[in-house]
């Protein structure tokens, strides 16, 4: 076979279709959640152990840097959840037509950002 067709793999020049963007963000958000699991477990432990550790947990949450990380993780969770529900729908052959798939991927992208903004402002 002749593989002479052009390959164009400059990552900064490739225009990702919205469903592809949602898909790669699903992977990246999952990886981020995995890497930050010990941090989240540590926070859960601090919040539950004792009244004193609960206060330390609240102090950690009051730190703007920690807040930024947690809001980032909140987005990762929400995007992963919404994109995951979309993938489950696609598994059931719901919304597999091109137009429907594009619309649902836009909804996931915007929905996760909007929910993060609302919950983030409320938690801040």
């Amino acid at each position, binding site marked *: 076979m002749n593989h002479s067709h052009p390959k164009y793999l400059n990552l900064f020049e490739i225009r990702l279709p919205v469903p592809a963007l949602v898909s790669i963000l699903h992977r990246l958000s999952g990886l981020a959640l*995995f890497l930050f699991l010990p941090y989240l*477990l540590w926070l859960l432990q601090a919040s*539950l152990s004792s*009244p004193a550790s609960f206060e330390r947990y609240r102090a950690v949450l009051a730190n703007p840097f920690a807040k930024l990380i947690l809001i980032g993780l909140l987005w990762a969770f929400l995007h992963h959840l919404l994109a995951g529900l979309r993938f489950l729908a696609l*598994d059931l052959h719901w919304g597999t037509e091109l137009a429907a798939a594009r619309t649902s991927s836009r909804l996931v992208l915007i929905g996760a950002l909007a929910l993060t903004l609302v919950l983030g402002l409320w938690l801040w």
Partner: protein
Amino acid sequence: MVKRTVVGAHYGLRGWLAQRVSAVVMAVYALLFVLVLAAIGPVDYAAWRAMFASQAMKLATFVFFVSLFVHAWVGMRDILMDYAKPMSLRLALEALVVVLLLAWAGWALQILWSV
């Protein structure tokens, strides 16, 4: 003949299905968690601890954590299969992920049953 390698996929449906079942379990738990939080109202330490003191909440959270670690395993395995090409590197990283997830599972149990 399929060439089976030690760090290959499960050559079938199992991982794919486990990913989806665990996802549904976690989505249901997340919904229940938000509803319970909303029912409690403003959360101070006593209310937060009381919430996790009930056996039902402990067991539900335990099932959530097991689903989370199974889900994370399949997801991380997928990522490593795509990007960690040398077989020795992939095997080492997959083993590391399993060891981490087991340790975190023990930690999660400890947190839940110390309440």
